[in-house]
Structures are given as C-alpha cells and as structure tokens.
C-alpha cells in the first residue's frame, strides 16, 4: 500500500508561501531596524537604509560568470576532497546488500530490492549533502581563503549562490552515477520470476460512497470490529453496495489500450456462518446514470493473500453483453464513460459474509509506464531534496561553524521529514479543539510527575495558569516552526517504484519542485546578509 501524501494545492501553496515570505521579511526588517538604532543611535536608520539598498543591488545584480567561477571552485574542492569516495561506499553496500537479500521469499520479491537501493541511496546522499554543504564555507572563512575572494569584485550573494550551485552539481553527478548503478543492480538481482513486477502502474483514484443493506445511502459501511478504521465493510447478499466515481479519465488513452483495467485490494471478512473453505466473491457493475445503464461485468473471488499480482486486476473488454437479455452489447468507452466519468458498483455476493473496501482499494489502472521512468522520477524527487538540503546547509554555514550548521540542517531535515506530519496534526487539533490532549510540554511534564491522567482537568491555581500560558508560547513557537520548516514528506518518492507505481507528477514532483524553488530566495537572502554583515574573521 502506498503511504499517502497530503493533497497539494498549487494556488494555495504559492499564496501561503508569499504570506510567510512577506511576514518573515517584515519581521527581519523590523529587527534589523531596531538593532541598527540600538547599535548606532540616530545614525542607525541611515546605515540601515544603506545596507538595505546595497543588499538589494547585490541580490539583483548577480553575475552568472562569477557564480560560475565559484561553483566550479566548489566543485573542484569537493572532488579533490574525495567526495566521490561515497560512490565506492555505495558499491560495497551493494555487494553486501545483494548477499543479504538473495534467498528471501517474500510475496513481492521485487519490492525489497528496489526499496533497498532507493533507501540506501537516499540515506547516503542525504548524509553526504549535509556534510559537504555545511563545512565548505566555514573552512573557507577559517583558512581565510575567502578573504582573497571577497577582495575581488565578488558580491557575497554570488558566493552563496555559487556554493549552492557547486555542491548541487557534485551531488547531481554522484546521484546520476549511483542511480545508474542501482538500476543495473536491480535489473540483475531481481529474480527472473519477479522481473515483471518492475512496472510503473498509473492509478486514477475515485471517490467512494456507500449504500446500506436496505438500499439507503450511508456514510460508511459496517464496522466489523477492526481497530483500524481504514476499511469499511459491506454485507453480502443484501442491497449494501460500495460505489466509486472516477472523474476526468482520459477515454482516448484507454480506448487505444483496447480495454479498461481496474485493480482492487479488497479484504474479505468471514463470519462463522457460511462455508469456511469457500472463497468470498464480489460482483462488479459499471453504471451510466444518465442513460440509466447498469452492466454486470462479472463476479470475482477475493484473494487478498495471493502472491499472483494478476489476481488483483479486473480486465474489462471494450464490449460487454448488455443486461437487457436481448443479446446486444454495450461499449464501455462510448456508453459507460460519458465525459471521462466512470461509476463502478461493487457488492459482496455471499450471504452473511462481508467485503472490506476503502477509497483507494479500487483504482482505474491507466496503461503502465516503464519502471525505468518511475525510477528516474523517484531519483528526481531525491535530487530535489538533496538540492534543498544543500541550500539549507550552505545558508546555515554562512552564520555558524560547520558542526553547528550540520546540526541545524539535520534538525531541519528531521522536522521536515519525520516530524512535520505529527506537528501539522497536533496544530490542527489545537486549532479545532482549542487544546491538545494532555496539554503542551510543561503541562505534560506536570502530568507525568503528578501521575495525572491525560483527560483529567488540571487543578485551577496560579501555577497551572502559568504552565498553561507558557505552553501557549510554546505552541506559538511550534506554529512558527511549522510555517518555516520545509515539508519533506513530498520528497519521499522511494515507495512508488518499490510498490510498482509511477511517481505522480502533480502531487509529488510538482510540490517538491515548488518547495525547493520556494526556499531558494529566502535562503539566499538570509545567507547573503549573514556573510555581508559579519567580519570574516574566525572566532
């Protein structure tokens, strides 16, 4: 199953970016202005304006030639400091990885190979991007080689951009090499029988709705007692149904392919009634409400534990026998998909048994793309993340030394990659309910020490009031962090090729591209002013 990423709305994202950018800028300007006043008194504002206009000029009038020179220098530096050795490490890892992975007999044998290659690659390259980008500039300042550079007509913005570009180039080359190596390795190591799993399925997901056992619309199916509420169950032999509505299907593409393919991952729930050794079946109809058409496609067994991937596929020919019993046929593309809209109805055939369904349990499978393509797109996702890390690392290294910059950047990655989802959820909870179960940091600590249940209200006194108001400050901080930190969940593309899916552009690659671009300007501005406003002496 694919771990879902939040839906990405381009307009909203750009607007949100602009708002956060403007707010950050305003705060920075205010802080700068106050700092100039306190440092230089009445001469401060004049100084402030001079630095600002100078900064604006330095950021606009950057020269590609000088950026190129610094990028080339950075590139050479990384190469001569033997950054490429990481590639060797990768090779060794492959040799050992192959050793461990061979002989596993999992139900999807191709998956561990792909997942292994992509995970190893991301891990090594993220580590490497972190290390090379955070140590270069501080070393340059410490050795004072930057002194010689800044006494040439180089703007410090060009140094920041040139460094970012240079490191990105190094990483791009290493990424291309390791991906090629990884691809060759996958092709060689995946057993012949599993090679056909190296595909890139292109799913189109629909919207699910339910009808209960009496034929009345329902919000969901039946709960059979699963703790996991992902699937909802429909009862067999009744009027209970699940419907999927797929919109905006490209009918021409499907017509060219000659048939309509659906793929399902339903789950059967067996009660003690009925026959234990019999397969549970579901039936599937295609509907066209406008023409009042309802065509039975067929009945299929649910084989959720099968190892044969083709069991999950429902192949629907272009012509189906019409249900009017006059021997006529219905054309799937002409009659059942008006304006690219397809309605699918699913019922459980067997009485007193249940069929578990979730929205993503049924999708239209568009013609497959090549695995190589999906693999390449996943690598591009990784590449975008590396570029983002390089940008953050370079900027951090403009104002702190190597170790601190590494720590800062690693924190940003951690928050963006691991913690961002939780943070978002928590803040949403806070927004909707006005509080978080168990409270903020201090309140939680208080509860731990007093062994108080999460749901028990706090006693009302000055101490707990203080705790609560301090926690509010903490939440405010978290909100700011949540706004500023990049959401790296979009960049995690490994799962797609590993599970045999294509990497979707609109919801995965596009957000990654926009996020990376969105951070470029603020980071360059931050890096520029950090370099511009400090003496390049090693402290």
């Amino acid at each position, binding site marked *: 199953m694919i771990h879902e990423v939040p839906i990405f709305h381009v307009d909203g994202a750009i607007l949100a970016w602009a708002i956060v950018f403007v707010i950050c800028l305003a705060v920075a300007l205010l802080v700068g202005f106050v700092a100039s006043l306190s440092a230089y008194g009445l001469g401060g504002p004049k100084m402030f304006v001079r630095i600002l206009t100078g900064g604006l000029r330095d950021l606009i009038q950057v020269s590609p030639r000088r950026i190129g020179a610094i990028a080339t220098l950075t590139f050479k530096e990384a190469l001569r400091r033997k950054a490429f050795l990481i590639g060797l490490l990768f090779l060794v890892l492959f040799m050992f990885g192959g050793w461990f992975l061979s002989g596993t007999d999992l139900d999807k044998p191709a998956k561990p190979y792909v997942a292994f290659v992509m995970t190893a690659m991301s891990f090594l390259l993220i580590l490497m991007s972190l290390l090379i980008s955070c140590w270069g500039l501080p070393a340059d300042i410490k*050795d004072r080689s930057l002194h010689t550079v800044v006494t040439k007509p180089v703007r410090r913005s060009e140094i920041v951009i040139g460094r970012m570009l240079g490191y990105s180039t190094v990483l791009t080359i290493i990424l291309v090499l390791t991906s090629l190596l990884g691809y060759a390795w996958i092709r060689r190591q995946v057993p012949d029988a599993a090679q056909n799993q190296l595909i890139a399925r292109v799913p189109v997901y629909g919207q699910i709705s339910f009808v209960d056992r009496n034929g009345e619309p329902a919000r969901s199916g039946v709960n059979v007692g699963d703790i996991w509420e992902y699937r909802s169950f429909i009862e067999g032999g009744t009027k209970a149904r699940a419907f999927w509505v797929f919109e905006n299907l490209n009918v021409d593409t499907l017509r060219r392919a000659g048939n309509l393919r659906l793929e399902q991952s339903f789950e059967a729930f067996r009660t003690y009634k009925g026959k234990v050794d019999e397969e549970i079946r579901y039936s599937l109809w295609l509907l066209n409400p406008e023409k009042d058409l309802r065509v039975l496609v067929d009945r299929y067994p649910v084989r959720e534990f099968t190892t044969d991937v083709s069991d999950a596929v429902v192949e629907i020919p272009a012509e189906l026998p019409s249900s009017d019993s006059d021997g006529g046929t219905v054309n799937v593309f002409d009659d059942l998909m008006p304006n690219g809209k397809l309605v699918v109805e699913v019922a459980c055939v067997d009485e007193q048994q249940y069929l578990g369904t979730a929205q993503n349990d049924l999708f239209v499978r568009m013609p497959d793309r090549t695995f190589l393509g999906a693999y390449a797109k996943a690598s591009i996702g990784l590449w975008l993340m590396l570029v983002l890390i390089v940008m953050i690392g370079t900027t951090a290294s403009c104002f702190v030394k190597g170790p601190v910059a590494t720590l800062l950047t690693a924190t940003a990655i951690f928050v963006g990659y691991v913690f961002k989802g939780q943070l978002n959820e928590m803040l949403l909870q806070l927004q909707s309910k006005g509080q978080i179960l168990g409270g903020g940091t201090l309140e939680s600590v208080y509860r731990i020490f007093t062994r108080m249940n999460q749901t028990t209200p706090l006693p009302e006194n000055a101490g707990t009031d203080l705790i609560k108001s301090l926690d509010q400050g903490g939440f405010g901080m978290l909100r700011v962090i949540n706004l500023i930190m990049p959401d790296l969940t979009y960049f995690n593309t490994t799962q797609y090729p590993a599970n045999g899916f294509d990497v979707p552009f609109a919801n995965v690659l596009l957000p990654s591209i926009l996020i990376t671009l969105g951070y470029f300007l603020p980071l360059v501005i931050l890096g520029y002013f950090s370099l511009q406003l400090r003496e390049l002496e090693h402290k």
Partner: protein
Amino acid sequence: MSESVIEVRNLSKVYRDFWGRPKVRALNSLSLDVKKGEIFGLLGPNGSGKTTTLKLLLGLLFPTEGQVRILGRPAEDVEKNERIGYLPEESYLYRFLNADETLDFYGRLFKMSSAERRQRRDDLIKLVKLEHARKRQLKEYSKGMTRRIGLAQALINDPELVLLDEPTSGLDPLGTRDMKDMILELRDRGKTVVMCSHLLADVQDVCDRIAILFRGELKVLGSVQELLEAKDETQIMTSHLSEEAKREVEEVLKKHGATVKSVSHPTATLEDLFLRTVAESESRPGRRFEPGERPSTENA
C-alpha cells in the same frame, strides 16, 4: 602626486570577543593619505596594526570609528575591487588548485574574456617565475613560491592600486630583490602601492613615503627622504679618495668652519630610526612625532 587614492580619517578598530566585549584596541585614531602613483610603506613591529589597517581599507573588517575612502569610494563598496589588487599576509589561496587554476579562478571574478585571462595568466606566471610549477597544487608549494603566486593573483586584474601585506616575508634574498623590482616597476607604470612590512631594508629601498605604527598609533609619517635626512649634517659621497686628497678636503672644510665628524662608508639608517621610534614610544606612550621631527638619539 596630489590626488589622494586612499583617505583615512580617525580610524579606530577594537577587536571584540564572541560576546562583544572589547578585547584588543588594534588601531587608534589613524589618519593618513596615500597619493596617486607613490609607494607607501606601513611600518611597525608585530602586532602594531598594519594588517588591521589594510583589512579596514578593503572592507574585510568594519571600523569601530572613523572613515575610509579608497579610490573615492567607501571601503565596503564591491566595485572598487575591480581596480585593486591585494596580497594577504599569508597568501590565503585554495591549496587544492594549481597555479594555472588559481589565476584562472581569480581572473574569472573580473570582467575579462577567456583569451585575455589566459594571456594574463601566462604573463604573470612568467613574471613571478613559476613556469616550472604551474601544474602543481599549491599545497606542495614552499613559502616563497606561495608568496609569488600570491603576488600574481593580486595583479591578475592589472590593478591601479596594489595593497601588499608583508610582500617579502618568506622570500630568499633573490626573491626579495625580484619582489622589490616588481614593486618599483609597478610604480613606473603609474600604479599606487601600499605595502606593510617590518623588514626595514625593503621599505627603505622602495618606499617614497612611510608611516610607522606602534600599538595601533601613528608615530611617524613622512617621506623617506625627509625623515632620514639629517639637516644639521652633510654627507658627501665620493669615489675613493687618496690620503692627500682627504687632507686637502679637510683644509677646505676647516676654512668654512666645519669639522669632519667621521669618514666612513655609508650605512642603512632606517633601522636606527625604526628602533629609536620604538624605544621612544615605549618610554613615553601617547607621544606622536610631527612630520619632519625625529625621535631623539639619546634613548637609542
């Protein structure tokens, strides 16, 4: 020799520690001008603020007080660097580059076509006599070789104003001679040179004007000629004189009421001046000598 290339007014620099507390007052209220086309020497013992002064001129450090104008622009202006060359105290270059790559890299930071860059690179490598080592990485260079490539790097843009921090340190006598000749040649080509050094012979040989710094304070400022000239004494230098000729010269001098104090071969006297300045400053801190005035001889 009238237009000022560098104007320094009341320049002070206090180094601060990480917490912003004052640590060292490296420069105290320095004022001086450097005129177009001259070779200006900044002298002083170690730690007297010479390097600090140069870094302030280049905008590498920010002044605590005072103003700097260099080529008519403020120190932090980037574009002035198009016309400036700087040789840092220890050639702070990229040790993983070779000589060719180094010059090419710095050349690319200026508006130069690649043909121009190559031409300039080859000329400079020849000028600093590094033809034999142009493909070796700088980390293999000796101190003297590093100085040479450092100078080449400073001249890559054919600058109007060259700032050299201890240009002869680490050079052998031959290298020192070469460096001095190159500096003189720069002046002949109309460039302005500011160099700082604690090697007095170097300064005496090439500088038109000097300033002596001691613990961040300007002690002496003036032309080398004027400062070293003893106004109440006259030195006559001739080719070798016979004993008889000497006696006759003495006769003539006696007739004019002058006495011969010594008859000897000329020696370097800048060293004297330097040592006297330091000694005087140590015993009477805060004193500054007016142009033309010299520290008294008694203290030496």
